[in-house]
């Protein structure tokens, strides 16, 4: 006897979108999530909805894919205001900005020339504005969670430990929050567990279809402007910078870069502190000192990047793979922007297998839900260790001190 038509492992962005897409096609969906919504990759994201960014000619398929994903986001986010409507792309090499601007225009992406904004130093000598908005991902997750709860999706707290073929369907063994185990049977399963997917595949004896990388995020709080910017020059240490605005009206900056590290189980030592110090040094080069002086607290958290093997890295072209004769779909978008495409692929694959009605209508617009009415949180919204009143203009915090922020 089956407990549902499809099991979706993971209630992040891809899992929620997949579950909703299948529920609206009439499927009985069992959504299994081991912890708070947003604990994984979705809650660690900048919230950029990329349209092209600076991938350049090495990633020729991405602008079309991102454009396709954007149509879904426009529907989903029709009622949600962005944190920033566009992003500043800043270079220190004038030739580089001209090349990038030309590539973006040739790819059909909207760009606007602009002068260097006041919050940057003179170091980035050339900028343009892109039409890449940033969103509070917590608002999106909370809205999707509310939709899932009202769409008849059965939510099972717990972690899918193992999945295997059973009859003409699948059987999932779930560890529940109290330590007990349960078995859920369905005709199909979608694995959208992000960093948890490799372990689940290994325990299930399935191919290693997903690779993980470790990254870090630096979190700055204070009286900061709500901005978003990309510094794409890797030789100069490229950065992403996105903002969130809290209930107190203060902006939080989320800063990361292009580096990723091994995700193995060993203690990374003071790698996080080393990374954070390097990011602070670069920020000091590109951000106006009067703005940096307004930072009241520094925090940070480790983040995970995942992508499908073998051709995935941080910028995968593909986002779904089928296993166990198509009974299991691994949904693995390498970027938040591509989550609707991964969900659409997974839902379409499962719907075909289950003989469900077709539905190309996308998702309903998300309605904002107050934080106290949903368990979904981005990592920056949670309690984090902080270094208060840091001196970011003089002697920077040492590597060991910064590492402590990431270890707590």
């Amino acid at each position: 006897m089956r407990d549902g038509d499809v099991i979706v492992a993971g209630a992040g962005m891809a899992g929620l979108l997949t579950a909703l897409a299948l529920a609206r096609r009439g499927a009985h969906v069992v959504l299994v999530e081991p912890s708070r919504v947003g604990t994984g990759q979705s809650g660690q994201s900048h919230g950029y909805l990329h349209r092209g960014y600076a991938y350049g000619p090495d990633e020729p398929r991405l602008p079309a894919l991102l454009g396709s994903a954007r149509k879904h986001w426009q529907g989903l986010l029709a009622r949600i205001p962005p944190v920033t409507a566009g992003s500043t792309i800043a270079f220190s090499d004038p030739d580089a900005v001209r090349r990038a601007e030309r590539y973006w225009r040739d790819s059909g992406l909207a760009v606007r020339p602009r002068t260097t904004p006041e919050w940057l130093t003179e170091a980035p000598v050339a900028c343009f504005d892109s039409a890449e908005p940033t969103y509070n991902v917590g608002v999106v997750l909370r809205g999707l969670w509310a939709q899932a709860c009202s769409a008849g999706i059965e939510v099972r707290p717990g972690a899918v430990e193992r999945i295997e073929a059973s009859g003409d369907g699948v059987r999932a063994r779930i560890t529940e929050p109290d330590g007990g185990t349960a078995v859920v049977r369905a005709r199909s399963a979608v694995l959208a567990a992000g960093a948890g997917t490799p372990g689940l595949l290994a325990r299930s004896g399935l191919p290693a279809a997903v690779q993980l990388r470790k990254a870090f995020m630096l979190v700055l709080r204070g009286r900061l402007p709500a901005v978003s910017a990309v510094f794409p020059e890797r030789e100069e240490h490229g950065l992403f910078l996105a903002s969130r605005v809290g209930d107190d009206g203060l902006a939080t900056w989320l800063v990361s870069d292009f580096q990723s590290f091994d995700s193995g189980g060993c203690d990374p030592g003071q790698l996080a502190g080393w990374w954070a110090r390097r990011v602070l040094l670069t920020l000091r080069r590109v951000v106006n000192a009067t703005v940096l002086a307004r930072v009241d607290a520094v925090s940070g958290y480790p983040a995970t990047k995942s992508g499908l093997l073998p051709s995935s890295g941080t910028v995968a072209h593909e986002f779904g793979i089928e296993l166990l004769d198509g009974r299991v779909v691994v949904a693995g978008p390498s970027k938040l922007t591509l989550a609707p495409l991964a969900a659409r692929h997974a839902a379409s694959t499962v719907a075909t297998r289950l003989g469900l009605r077709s539905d190309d209508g996308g998702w309903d617009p998300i309605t904002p839900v107050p934080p106290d009415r949903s368990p979904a949180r981005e990592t920056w919204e949670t309690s984090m260790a902080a270094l208060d009143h840091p001196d970011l203009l003089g002697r920077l915090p040492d590597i060991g001190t910064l590492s402590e922020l990431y270890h707590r």
Partner: protein
Amino acid sequence: MPGDGVEVVVGLATEIRVSLRTGDLMAKASNSQDRLLLAGLGPLRSAARYDEEAVLLETVSGERWLVRMSPVSGLVATVEPAVGVGSAPRGGDRCATAT
């Protein structure tokens, strides 16, 4: 690391190039382009192979750091202060080249 002037090539499982000016660690990616393994924190006095998986960096201010790579991914796995670590214990393996 265009125009660095001085870099050190350290032979581990893969060849790693270290800029003595910036401290950046780079490796050749599968598309033959340079991949940044670890953004450096400034000028280095030296960089050398420590063992099969690690590079020992010494800054101009005398700090010494052990950067360990994963043999599986080829990415940086750990960074630790090199306290009590001798310099380049396998000196014969050291491959330092000024370019």
